[in-house]
């Protein structure tokens, strides 16, 4: 068992390594910032996946988003971590991003469980269950929202639907 001082040392080391060798920046955002980011870009179709490190179906479907990010220049993929709702420790999310070598943009939503707060502002039909995916085309206002784990090929179909 590590002593308390060893634990602190470990935590400090983890922070240093997580910022030092990070393959990409992981930003904390508020709901306002996220909403603004979703609606302001008309040049690309916005694909926003809500996930958490503890959510097994989220982790399972993640490669679909990574593949989409690498293969389709028409889309902007954002993986929005909801981990902070339960555990206010972004280091865990950053370590996950590094371990999985994620290449899509990763954001951490810096909000917690609201009394009827921000979930509706992202999507009215969302119950709050994870995973959930929002696809928005700001040029024609079309959007799709799926509240479950996606299967191979579904993302491409949804993107075609909002692109019509």
């Amino acid at each position, binding site marked *: 068992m590590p002593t308390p001082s060893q634990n602190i040392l470990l935590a400090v080391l983890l922070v240093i390594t997580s910022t030092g060798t990070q393959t990409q920046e992981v930003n904390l955002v508020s709901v306002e910032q996220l909403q603004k980011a979703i609606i302001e870009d008309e040049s690309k179709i916005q694909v926003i996946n809500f996930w958490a490190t*503890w*959510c097994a*179906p989220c982790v399972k479907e993640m490669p679909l988003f990574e593949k989409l990010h690498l293969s389709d220049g028409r889309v902007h993929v954002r993986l929005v971590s*909801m981990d902070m*709702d*339960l*555990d*206010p420790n972004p280091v865990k999310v950053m370590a996950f991003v590094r371990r999985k070598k994620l290449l899509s943009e990763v954001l951490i939503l810096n909000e*917690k*469980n*609201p*009394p*009827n707060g921000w*979930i*509706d502002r992202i999507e009215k*039909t*969302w*119950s*709050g*269950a*994870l*995973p959930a995916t929002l696809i928005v085309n700001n040029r024609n206002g079309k959007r799709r929202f799926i*509240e*479950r*784990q996606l299967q191979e090929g579904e993302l491409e179909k949804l993107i075609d639907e909002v692109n019509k």
Partner: protein
Amino acid sequence: MWKGWILLGVLSAALTAFMPSFTGYEIGDTATDFKLKNVDGKSVSLGDYKDAKGFILVFDCNTCPYSKAYNSRIIALNDKYVSKGYPLIAINASDNSSPGESSDDNINKAKKHSYKFPYLTDETQEIARAYGATNTPHVFVLNRSRQGFRVAYIGTIDDNARNPDNVTRRFVEDAVDALLSEKEVPVKKTKAIGCTIKWKPA
């Protein structure tokens, strides 16, 4: 003859178009009774509770970190309200083939935490679908009326999953307290981030 087939086609198209938009119960709806197996092997129905004024129905599961965070609060809700006529019933509706969610896992959890309330298995997931439960823990407060048990509150337990010490709004307690004093439930619906109910493959 062919007219019949067209009609059938239109009807089934209308039905499939309608089905995904079904979102379960709204406030004021009469909730269906059920007959689900408890961890002791016996079946439990709402109808078994002749003296209950209502229920705190919790769709829960074993592995979800939100369920774990709320477990002691779920136990406390039953302790507080069972004697006041609002017993708690927990239901695990997760696909029981997913890791940690089998009937045996339910039995172990109930034993480990000395549950004094039923922990039922919704094996077909029909009850979760009928109620419109989506995540865990997802609470439905029911209140007895002449027509049956009416839905009085749907949502989360309180406003702080992270830390029970930092809770400022206790939605379920507020709802049951209001029903007990025959007042209007102050907040009838809430939403919270949580684990999805693990649905069986269609």
